[in-house]
């Protein structure tokens, strides 16, 4: 394509004013270019950094927050659209009259507290009544009885203790006895009876010996004897 008014156009262009940017613009451009050159390694390093995705619950939380914000905003919008009402002017004197006497309000509170305290006392009285039973009156009676039994001299249950313990030790170590299905049971039974015997002996110390305790001790001793027989038979 050929320009028909080429000379005119060239003349017009040559008459147009020429603008040069202020020198500081070039300096600024130069600084920016330098900065880019300086930051180039940083940017390349940044690109090499690994990327991490946030856990899904973060997004869920963000979504919830956003929704809450949106819901809050909707609420605020709705509130702002509510019509406003001013109470009639004659109501204010009545309200002021109702709240004016602070002294009376304090008195009411004290009364309420007193009533609550009384109610609490009544409740406590109900839950923790007075001594409803008559006071304890102890009466003593004196008597004498004759007994033929001298329990203090009956302490023969420990006489065969060493031999019995020897039998238990033999049974415990015996390889044949160890194969018995009752092996553990017999040993635990022995321990039980020993504990029981000690309990009875303690009661004898505290409450004194009587026929019942002697009988209980004897029964335990008989059971121990039976157990020893059973153990010895297995050795």
């Amino acid at each position, binding site marked *: 394509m050929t320009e028909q008014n080429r000379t005119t156009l060239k003349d017009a262009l040559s008459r147009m004013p020429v603008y040069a940017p202020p020198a500081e613009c070039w300096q600024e451009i130069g600084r920016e270019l330098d900065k880019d050159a300086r930051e180039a390694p940083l940017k390349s390093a940044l690109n090499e950094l690994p990327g991490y995705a946030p856990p899904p619950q973060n997004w869920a939380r963000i979504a919830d927050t956003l929704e809450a914000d949106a819901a809050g905003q909707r609420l605020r919008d709705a509130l702002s659209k509510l019509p406003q009402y001013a109470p009639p002017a004659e109501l204010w004197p009545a309200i002021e009259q109702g709240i004016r006497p602070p002294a009376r309000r304090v008195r009411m509170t004290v009364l309420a507290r007193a009533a609550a305290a009384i109610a609490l006392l009544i409740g406590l009285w109900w839950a923790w009544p007075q001594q409803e039973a008559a006071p304890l009156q102890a009466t*003593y009676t004196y*008597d004498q009885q004759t007994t033929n039994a001298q329990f203090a*001299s009956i302490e023969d249950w420990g006489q065969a203790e060493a031999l019995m313990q020897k039998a238990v030790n033999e049974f415990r170590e015996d390889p044949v006895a160890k194969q018995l299905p009752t092996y553990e049971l017999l040993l635990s039974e022995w321990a039980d009876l020993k504990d*029981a015997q000690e309990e*009875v002996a303690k009661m004898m110390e505290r409450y004194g010996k009587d026929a*019942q305790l002697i009988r209980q001790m004897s029964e335990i001793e008989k059971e121990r004897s039976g157990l020893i*027989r059973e153990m010895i038979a297995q050795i």
Partner: protein
Amino acid sequence: MKNWNPLFGACWDCTLRAGKRNLSWLSTKPLWAMLAVCGLGFLGNGLMAQTTNLHVITKRLEKTFKYRDTYEVNIEGEKADVSIETWNKDEISLTVEFIAKHPEKATAETDIEAIKYIAERVRNKIYVRNYISVPEGDPEPASNLSARYVVKVPENCPVYLKNYFGTANVINLAKRFRYQGEFSPVGLENVQGSIDLSSRFGDVSGKRLDGNVTINARRSNVTLEEIKGRYSIESNYGDVRILSASAGLLDLNITGTKSDIFLFDPRLLDYGYALTAQHGSIYFPSNLKMEFLKNTDEIKKVEFQPRAEYYPNVTISVTFGDIYLEKEKPDQRR
């Protein structure tokens, strides 16, 4: 252990099965073994035929509480013979006696005060307890000491009794009775409702019990008669004897270790059975056509279902023990 309960005359026949064996095996044992067994025969020889005069001092205390429906009586007795009975008053009455016996009167007088006693109501519970307390430095009591309780309650009053080295007799309670005893035989008669008993070295006897009954007995014999309701019994080193069941029996579950279980009832054919004996045997009348599920030296397992639509279930499992089902009680066979 003997049964000291005056309600029943049953007596533990001391589980000395080994003692019934022929002792000829002893001749093959070493000398110490013979001494260990024979030496036991000397026990009891120390009882002296000597007369002693004892001063007996009895301290008696009485206390009465008004009863409300929510109340429960908790008794913790030590060396105490406890008797619990019911009455028609809306009151709980406690009569406690402490007894001291000693050849010296002054000693008995001093020692009786060493037995302390608590009877108080805290909210809905009435606590009763006795114990021995001696000031530090003072000598221990030298007297023979014991306690006796007579407790009267309305029949619906729940009672929890804990007893250590004593006896207990309970009659006519209708709502709830819990018992924890050690070295204390306990007897119950005509007790209904929730019954929970735990006993160690103390025989348990019950007559005309009805309700949900749970018994845990260790080294204690259990003897029950005319039972109704549901029963769960666990027994270790003690026999269980059910002398008779009444028409209201619903379920009977018994688990035993080193225990023999006896069920005597003329209507054995009316019940369903699941019986298991490990290292033991099962004995039952020939007309009870049990189905053997297992029958080895180690384990025996039988079942039976009656033709009736509804019937009580009897489930018994024992280890190192036997099960006996018999139509008649031993005393009826004579």
